[in-house]
């Protein structure tokens, strides 16, 4: 995917790139363990986990709300040190931790505001800046499941979709 995705321009001069060299881990709280999980997250990352559809930058990890009591942790991939193994140890007994790096593809749209494709093609409201920096939505695009979040610093948007649909989603994202 990398050579397909990089450097192609989207509308309004924005650029789309595939994020590479990252580890993506899905974390789901065990029943009744949410408070203890937040304590463990505070110790390891300096923050409780978001309860609303928000994304937070927490040191070496980006933590994305992924449904009630679920999150994606996005970290830099490192040779010889698997971030999901580390997370499993950090959250031992408190959460189910699964490495989904190979099942999700992430794209970044560098843009100060939403592109035409987002405004016209997604079912959530992007107009009038209603999707704020740090906001997250889980939705679909032409029947493809996709997560979208706006980077907390307002410099763009990121998208996570199933790897098998990545080419189709990338084509859609570059339209308009």
């Amino acid at each position, binding site marked *: 995917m990398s050579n397909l995705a990089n450097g192609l321009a989207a509308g309004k001069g924005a650029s789309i790139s595939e994020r590479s060299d990252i580890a993506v881990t899905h974390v789901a709280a065990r029943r009744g363990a949410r408070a203890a999980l937040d304590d463990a997250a505070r110790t390891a990352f300096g923050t409780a986990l978001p309860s609303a*559809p928000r994304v937070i930058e927490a040191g070496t990890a980006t933590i994305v709300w992924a*449904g*009630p009591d679920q999150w994606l942790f996005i970290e830099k991939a490192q040779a010889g040190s698997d971030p999901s193994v580390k997370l499993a140890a950090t959250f031992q007994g408190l959460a189910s931790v699964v490495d989904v790096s190979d099942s999700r593809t992430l794209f970044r749209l560098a843009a100060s505001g939403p592109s035409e494709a987002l405004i016209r093609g997604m*079912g959530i409201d992007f107009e009038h800046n209603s999707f704020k920096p740090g906001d997250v*939505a*889980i*939705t*679909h695009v032409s029947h493809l*499941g996709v997560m979208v979040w706006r980077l907390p610093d307002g410099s763009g948007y990121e998208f996570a979709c199933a790897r098998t649909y990545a080419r189709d989603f990338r084509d859609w994202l570059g339209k308009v």
Partner: protein
Amino acid sequence: MRIKCPYCGERGNDEFSYLGDASVKRPDPSAADASDAFYAFAYERKNVAGPMQELWYHAAGCHAWLVVTRDTRTHEISDVKPAQDVALEQQKTASAP
């Protein structure tokens, strides 16, 4: 029709799938009339004209099951709650002395 998911906010109904009456409860399989009760549980439904509580699944969103109170004549939605919260509340009421 749009449904306000308690987790995601308001979304189009294309993101949801419908299961039906949320008031139906699985009968006790050890009861003497279990066979009849299971028949009713599986097949018999009221054809409500007015507000009813329904189970909806946010399939293309957060994957939560929701209890939606919808008027079947107007599609007006007066309440949406996570099904988990509704179930826990009912458990609490049932176990209260």
